[in-house]
């Protein structure tokens, strides 16, 4: 257990997430405390990662690692320190200058260490509160680790509280629905299809008032 990380979550992140924003979580029991596991959620807001991470008990936090874009999260020293030490991110090189390198190697290592990886298969936050096309990284990881569960998580509301390109936090309750695990289905396409189906099913459990 990393003390600084636990303290920051206890004193700053949790009060922010639980009181200012307010969560309505269903299926929390589907989140494992130990890996290997891939948590695959939709991405609407900067708050997504911290909110997801606040669902785990403090002593499990050091096992949780969100994959995050290196060009953004390591762009300056302060942000890099916070990203690496508080959020425990796995930096992902989006540009891939070195063609020979394996983009999934660092993430695979997390799974080999029996830890938990948070991925946002949409890639970037995109238009708030709208699902964009999923990238196939989760299926490629599952291909290498077929026994690893992919846990679909549908979130709604955080994109309203803090959408892309805005700095003003306006509190709205957020819904989080955690689904049953999806496993490697034998091919990249069928695995992505199974994940897509699970996400669609979860999204129907949330009432979404219009917001445009």
């Amino acid at each position, binding site marked *: 257990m990393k003390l600084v990380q636990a303290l920051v979550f206890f004193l700053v992140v949790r009060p922010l997430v639980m009181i200012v924003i307010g969560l309505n979580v269903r299926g929390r029991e589907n989140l494992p405390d130990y890996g290997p596991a891939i948590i695959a959620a939709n991405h609407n807001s900067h708050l997504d990662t911290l909110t997801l991470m606040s669902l785990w008990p403090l002593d499990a936090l050091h096992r949780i690692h969100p994959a995050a874009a290196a060009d953004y999260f390591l762009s300056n020293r302060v942000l890099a320190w916070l990203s690496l030490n508080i959020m425990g991110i796995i930096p992902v090189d989006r540009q891939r200058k070195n063609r020979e390198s394996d983009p999934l190697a660092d993430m695979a290592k997390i799974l080999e260490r029996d830890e938990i990886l948070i991925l946002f298969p949409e890639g970037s936050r995109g238009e708030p509160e709208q699902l964009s096309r999923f990238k196939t990284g989760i299926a490629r990881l599952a291909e290498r680790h077929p026994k690893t569960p992919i846990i679909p998580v549908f979130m709604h509301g955080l994109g309203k509280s803090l959408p892309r390109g805005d700095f003003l936090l*306006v509190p709205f*309750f957020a819904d989080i629905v955690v689904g049953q695990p999806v496993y490697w289905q034998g091919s990249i396409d069928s695995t992505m299809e199974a994940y897509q189906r699970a996400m669609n099913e979860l999204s129907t459990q949330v009432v979404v*008032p219009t917001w445009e």
Partner: protein
Amino acid sequence: MDWFHQLFATDPDLAAMALLFLALLLAVTFGYLILRQREHWAGLPKIGSRIQFLWVLTTVFWIAILVNPKLLILYIAFIAFLAFKEFLSITPTRRADRRVLFCAYWTIPIQFFFIWRDWREAFVLFMPVFVFLILPMIMVVVGETKGFLRAWSTLGWGMITTVFSLGFLAYLIVLPIGTSTSASGGGLFLFLVGLAQLNHAAQYYFGKRFSDPRLSLKVSATRNWASLGGSIVVTAPVAWLIGPSLTHFSAPTNLLLGLLISVCGFIGYIILSSIKGDLQLKDRGSMTPGSGGVLNRIDTFVYTAPIYFYILSYLLGEVQ
């Protein structure tokens, strides 16, 4: 235990009543726990969350009367924040209005600051006059004109039903009490909240017991005209019974207050019910954002608190 002795010395009636309510809540909680062991009834989780809410309220109330009554103002301000947030989360909003909603949240600390300082004029005028002047203006300037009427009506209604109404509940704590009555803000608060809870339970019971179609209302499956009648029959006599220790008004006045709490509680329930029905949240239960939460707990105060407050200030003014 010093604080406790002090409370008994300064306001023995309030202390006795607060103990009585605590004992009642304990009894209800035990009853609920036993029921939960034996039966699997669909309504139980709802009752459980209400009991949980009452325990928090009771704890805050006790700390407040023992330490500083004004703590209740902070607590109610917090509930107002949660209720307003829940309202915004379940109603349609426009992305263009983010800045307006941000400002709308800031009316809560301002409004409750006026209450804390007992600035009655400012408290009464701030919401319906200043906020209704300034927020629509901000909405027009930074927002969009398309859908303006709907957006502003929803927001204004939300602020009035949550922040403004609950303010009246908080104001009971600082209401100036005349010399010829020994009622305290805590007593007036306990009278209202206790009766409102009793009234809620009575409405539920009578609605279930007499579910005649001729008595039914379009808006709710569990509330009908029998709920209203039955709850008046229960609440008014209890008001008459406990009034002497809490409000120190005359018997007819206490009866009138009991009647009022009953009728206004009913109106608050059915109106918030029809809002939830309109938003199609009713059959989705706990699947809705933050629903089953705060708005369900405060519906009984939306109309009761302001009207109770005005009758009290009239009565107390006259007594002085």
